[in-house]
């Protein structure tokens, strides 16, 4: 999502907070129907992950996810939401991990995709302002405060995760050269997270952001024990062993194009208020 972070402080910011709270209360009092808060609807195509390289390290008790995310967006500042375990710890990104693994495999990572060759002029970004939303109203409030809008179906999707006891983790990023017209800019950032779980938990399909309906997807699973576990959608492209941080891991790599959720037809706009 493109965001418009408050550019004021002091009493003026307090007023923005009151306004966002009023929108949130109006939404809640209207059975969470967005028709009561038309200003909260997302307005246009804004931001999507177009390619991602994920390293999933599972040690039998916890899972560490390291991500290289390539996104395109129209706007000056953006935000990504993702469901996470309530025990999730956000880690700094580790760009060197991708190089270390790819060097051992004789791979160039995402650059191995022919389709990725056309992605030029990628700006490096850092992720910041990591925030957790614990209730649906937190998500609505933040979206109202940062004027980034929500789609009702996306809101319902995150509400289901929240009902199951997950949190929604938000992070922001800003390219140094923003998109000032309808042409999206490409950016790349690195991120990480870790949470306890005895089983591998694949990342759910991301929601369509209005620009890229699918994702070039490279996923590398590292385990301490041998495994024949496979990614649910991506074909296996390599298998073996790698060393990372002084440990030897069994490795399975999956690659392909993965679909996003909530994709609409080409030329069809985002969800909007009902015709009155």
């Amino acid at each position, binding site marked *: 999502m493109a965001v418009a972070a408050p550019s004021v402080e002091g009493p003026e910011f307090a007023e923005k907070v009151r306004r966002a709270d009023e929108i949130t209360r109006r939404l809640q009092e209207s*059975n*969470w*129907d*967005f*028709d009561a808060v038309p200003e909260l*609807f997302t307005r246009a195509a804004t931001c999507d992950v177009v390619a991602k390289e994920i390293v999933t390290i*599972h*040690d*039998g*008790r916890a899972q560490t996810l390291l991500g290289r995310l390539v996104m395109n967006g129209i706007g000056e500042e953006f935000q990504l939401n993702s469901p996470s375990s309530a025990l999730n710890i956000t880690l700094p990104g580790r760009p060197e991990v991708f190089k270390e693994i790819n060097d051992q495999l004789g791979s160039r990572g995402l650059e191995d995709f022919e389709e990725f060759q056309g992605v030029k002029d990628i700006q490096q970004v850092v992720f910041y302002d990591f925030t957790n939303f614990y209730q649906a109203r937190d998500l609505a409030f933040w979206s109202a405060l940062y004027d980034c809008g929500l*789609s*009702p*179906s996306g809101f*319902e*999707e995150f*509400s*289901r995760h929240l*009902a*199951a*006891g997950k949190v929604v983790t938000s992070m922001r990023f800003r390219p140094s050269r923003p998109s000032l017209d309808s042409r999206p800019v490409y950016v790349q950032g690195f991120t990480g997270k870790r949470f306890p*779980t*005895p*089983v*591998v*938990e*694949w990342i*759910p399909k991301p929601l*369509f952001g209005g620009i890229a*309906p*699918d994702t070039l997807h490279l996923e590398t699973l590292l*385990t*301490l*024990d*041998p*495994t*024949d*576990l*496979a990614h*649910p*959608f*991506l*074909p*296996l492209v390599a298998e073996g062993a790698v060393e990372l941080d002084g440990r030897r891991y069994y490795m399975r790599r999956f690659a*392909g*194009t*993965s*679909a*996003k*959720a*909530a*994709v*609409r*037809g*080409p030329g*069809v*706009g*985002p*969800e*909007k208020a*009902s015709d009155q």
Partner: protein
Amino acid sequence: MNSHHRRGLSGSSGVDSGPRPFDLHVRGEVPTAFDGSLVVSTSRRAKDRSVFRRWHDSSTDLLRLDLFPGRPGRITAHILEVDPWAPELTLDLGLIPETGYRQGFRAPMPYPTQPNHGLNVANDLLWATNLLFGSPLEVELSTWKPRRILQFVQPDKEAPGVSTTSHFAWSPDRRHTYFHQSLLKPQPKPRPVVATDLRLIELDVANGDQRAWQIVPPPGDEAMESANFHSGFCFEARGKRYVGLLRTGAIIPSLTVHAGTNDHAVPRMPPSTIWLVEIDQASASLQAQLLPGVEQIDGLALSHLDVDISRRDGFILYANFKESPVGEETHGRNIYGEEPSVVAEHYPGMILEPLNYGAVIRYEWRNGDWSMRTFKRPYQPGRTSLGHTWLPINLQLEPGNQRLFATFSGFRPRLVSQHIAAAYPERSVEPTAVTFVPSLLMRFDARTLEPDYDPNGGHLSYAEPVAMAVAGDRTESFVCTFSPEAGLHIYRADDLNHVVCQAESPMLMHWGDDYFRPEPAHAEFVPR
């Protein structure tokens, strides 16, 4: 049944897959209402989108989740990989005394059984069925072993296919179950496949007795190209027993999958009807009658149901129209003119995609008098609390029959084939006016067939898997949804915002390296 060899790698991290039992990671509490097993029919799809295969033909993995209540409790998965040729079950052919028809048949095509859809359970037995093709597979639940194939018609070269009701009818005492079975006979092109030798089968689940009747089509609905029946129900009135069969009306262009994925002319489905037959043990054939008022709804693909037969003077039927040409595969260019190769959502194989939003009906019949309510609703993003009826799948009454739970698969517009939509111009949605519609679990007031509104949204949950089961009693009940990808979620039936249990395992999601298990349609809870 399948002797496919897997790499039997061991590991302590719970990350190995395979047909041996494995535990799910459980968070929360398995409630005592779910003390038993959840049976699910899953199928396999190739990850390679250039491999085209219909949903019907997709290999079956039957899944039994054994739930042990507690905090967090325990859930163990058992997978039965089904071989559609079932050689060990078709070699020893039995005879059905009443008909003289042989039970087993092994044909080069189509397969005898591919039970990747319907689940029918009594005592310790499961009868799993396809959406349309083949015969039910009988599986012993406790041993999780297949026992036999229920085939009551005799395929031959002229009519090599078999069609069976996916969801059986049950007598009020659940002693007898009823389903339709017929042969499928290809016709010279371009005519679609026709049904022949329509039979109604009765199975006594207490002693295994079985018999079959010929079904005589009702006057005015004799077209055999649409004579297929996805679900049935049974009721008693004035001391007589009746079976209702939902005549879905799928038109099957060919018994085999299309040779290519090209666009082609699509024969139109007729509106669905319900055939009603009175059980007469003294007769060899049963004359069907049309249940009045159903055809006039003008809905497509009447398919799933639940029924309230707590009174012995008729029934209240809850059923849904999918508004989808269910005999067609989603293939070819979509309604936006995109080729399948550029649509990543378009995994290989048939998926049901509706032409427009469907409907749920409540049909009450008391000693010949009837009344009907219809609930039909588009998706309004600005008013999600209203729910919708896009591609209805499951219907299940809560114990006590006061509330009805339903799942709706939603709508993925890029999966609607251009040539299929072109066959139904008056029904098909306008491509530029429709957006994605999320799936939905919704609770209804069973008397009014209106959503059972809760201001906090506790009457619905979006983005849910469509496979669903309700468990409990009149004092407390729960509803669960399941898919390999999303796992199991158990909710309090009173509040669909309140998850009490969530369980998952990556081993549910894939088969080997090349296949995955997409979202199944149905789940059946079997109390311990």
